[in-house]
């Protein structure tokens, strides 16, 4: 039996979601753009999902636009700035963003934009006042990740949103890791845009949403067909969208319980290894952090070796940034927090989620007690 502690990479699809999706695939063959009964039924599935997503995020259904996932949402918004803002050609972001924000920012720079990347402290948090200082008259957008995928560290989103509102700059938040693990209530926090992906909270891969809270115009990335009210061409991924809706409904319903249970498991793991293995350091704030994420430096060992050894023993975790061949490099998030490349290469990320229990955590503690000293003997760090 495998032990899966990599829920920040992706999550297993919940049975409830599978049922909703299979029902759509089997019984709902229409195209939402068609006007006949089949089309109407498909449109109803999409509309229902839109309501579920809106309810989960504390916004209105008309603000929700479906995409293929957070990467597309982030790209749509950031790359769309090029056409939308002739005069404002500056973006404020941080040094710990996901590549789907970082790379569009680099793309914009190559096309005449300026990008200010505000650094984080050693706990992995950005200082809202430093972010405010970076705002200029030409700033078209502020983009900040709500909860970092590698460390789980939560950014002061409320403060940043308040500051952005006061300065009149649209604020985009990448909430991909936050949903289902952290309260995301747009009725309380004035963000202009939000990105998310279904597969990070027990929904299917290949579907997500971009929430456009204000009236800000967005240039579509995909043209053709006028779907999603002209913002995203292409026939809707109806079953995927229904799955996203269902996963949102579960997340909304279970948030309190998940936070409590995940934190219990995560803390059990940290206490277990902290007391029995010397030379550990937890990466990132232990206060402002997702309940499910634990990023640990195992000084003097290589994260890649530990990951592979754990995998052979039946445990899935992650380390740093995997490149396409599968080899692992130092994480830019950890180096942005002041870790040396060597330190960053000595880290593992554990992320718990649905289906993980205390007995599994105890097994992982036991394995780490055995493997860390062995990995430290191998001179590979």
């Amino acid at each position: 039996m495998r032990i899966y502690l990599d829920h920040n990479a992706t999550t297993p699809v919940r049975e409830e979601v599978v049922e909703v999706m299979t029902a759509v695939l089997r019984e709902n063959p229409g195209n939402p753009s068609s006007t006949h009964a089949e089309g109407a039924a498909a449109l109803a599935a999409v509309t229902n999902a839109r309501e579920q997503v809106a309810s989960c995020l504390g916004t209105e259904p008309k603000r929700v636009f479906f995409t293929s996932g957070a990467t597309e949402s982030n790209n749509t918004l950031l790359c769309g700035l090029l056409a939308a803002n002739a005069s404002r050609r500056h973006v404020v972001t941080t040094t710990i963003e996901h590549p789907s924000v970082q790379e569009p920012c680099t793309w914009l720079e190559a096309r005449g934009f300026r990008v200010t990347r505000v650094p984080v402290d050693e706990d992995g948090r950005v200082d809202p006042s430093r972010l405010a200082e970076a705002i200029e008259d030409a700033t078209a957008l502020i983009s900040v990740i709500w909860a970092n995928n590698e460390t789980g560290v939560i950014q002061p989103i409320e403060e940043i949103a308040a500051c952005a509102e006061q300065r009149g700059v649209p604020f985009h938040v990448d909430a991909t890791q936050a949903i289902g693990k952290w309260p995301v209530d747009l009725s309380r926090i004035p963000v202009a845009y939000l990105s998310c992906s279904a597969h990070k909270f027990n929904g299917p891969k290949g579907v997500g949403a971009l929430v456009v809270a204000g009236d800000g115009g967005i240039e579509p990335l995909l043209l053709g067909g006028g779907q999603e009210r002209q913002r995203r061409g292409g026939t809707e991924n109806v079953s995927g969208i229904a799955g996203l809706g269902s996963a949102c409904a579960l997340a909304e319903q279970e948030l309190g319980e998940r936070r409590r249970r995940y934190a219990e498991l995560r803390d059990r793991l940290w206490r277990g290894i902290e007391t029995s293995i010397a030379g550990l350091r937890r990466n990132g704030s232990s206060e402002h952090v997702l309940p499910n994420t634990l990023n640990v430096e195992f000084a003097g060992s290589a994260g890649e070796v530990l990951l592979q050894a754990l995998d052979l023993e039946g445990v899935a975790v992650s380390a740093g940034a995997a490149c396409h061949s599968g080899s692992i490099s130092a994480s830019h998030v950890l180096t942005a927090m002041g870790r040396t490349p060597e330190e960053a290469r000595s880290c593992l990320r554990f992320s718990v989620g649905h289906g993980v229990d205390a007995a599994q955590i105890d097994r992982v503690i036991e394995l780490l007690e055995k493997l860390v000293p062995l990995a430290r003997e191998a001179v590979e760090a």
Partner: protein
Amino acid sequence: MTGPAAAVAPRERVVVAMSGGVDSSTAAARLVEQGYEVIGITMHLAGGASRCCSLEDAEDARRVAQRLGVRFFVANYRERFEQEVIVPFADSYLSGRTPIPCVACNTRFKFEYLMERARVFGAEKVATGHYARVERDPSSELYTLRRAADRSKDQTYFLFELGQAQLSRACFPLGAMTKSQVREHAREIGLTTADKPESQEICFVPDGDYAGLVERLRPEAGQLAGEIVDEAGRVLGRHAGIHHFTVGQRHGLGISAGRRLYVSRIEPDSQRVVVGGIEALAAHGAELTGVNWISGQPPERALQVRAQVRHRHAGVNARVEALPGGRARLLFDEPVEAVAPGQAAVFYDPPTAEAGREEGGERTLGGGWISTALK
């Protein structure tokens, strides 16, 4: 995501270094057939920060592992490989030597770092697709490194730095096979790599442009022009840096003389390349450093051996004398051409009386790095 049936006794784990070529693929397949629990690892060695990785070869290895039903990982050694192999390779050219990076790659990367990783994985043995054999001598209990059954493919020359501890954990499943048997076997079991062409160049210089690599790593090399002189010191021409030359080289000298000229010596201090006729290439021996004796014990008296001074060298009968400080002196029975500093001299058992051939014995005794050719 369930593992293999747990009813059978746990099998011995072996790590196989899988490059994505036919040899290491077949080595992995042979071990699976022999009942081992194989863990395939592609060592990600070259391909700097700019280019993420050599996707294709790792993908070939991954596909073979999938086909064989074995676990597979990519191991990142890029930074270390750059420091310990690629930079010294460049510096070697700049100091007038002709390096063989494959030896350090074997000694350190496959049979040290990968072995260490294997131990974390609970695997005592590390296997590669090398054409070589390792055996344990029952009387001395020492491990011996023997020539491959397929002499034309033998790679013991690149393995001469291995010691007893490494040989005790090394495994060469192809040592008794010929190359054509390997390909045939790979085809029979349907490996996608069965007909993949042989890699000829040094793996981190796929275009063969060594001088270009040297100049990328050490930009100052581009400024180091010098003279081409004959043995009497007469200037015959100019060159764009000694890293463009190798002892024994005939082409690309850019000078015309009435006879064929070869690089006979490279002088890093004066940046001079010395050329001469074929006779200037002949050496009667070589001084060696960094000598490894596979038994772990240098011989007390001078030893009659068959010596090989480069990869594709038929070998020459010679006497080797171990000197203090990991050095040795090698004296050839007859002159040898183009003995290049930076290359290795590897010693084998001398030709046997029975065989009566101009071919050495099977056993690799050791070897060292050529520091000076004796002329």
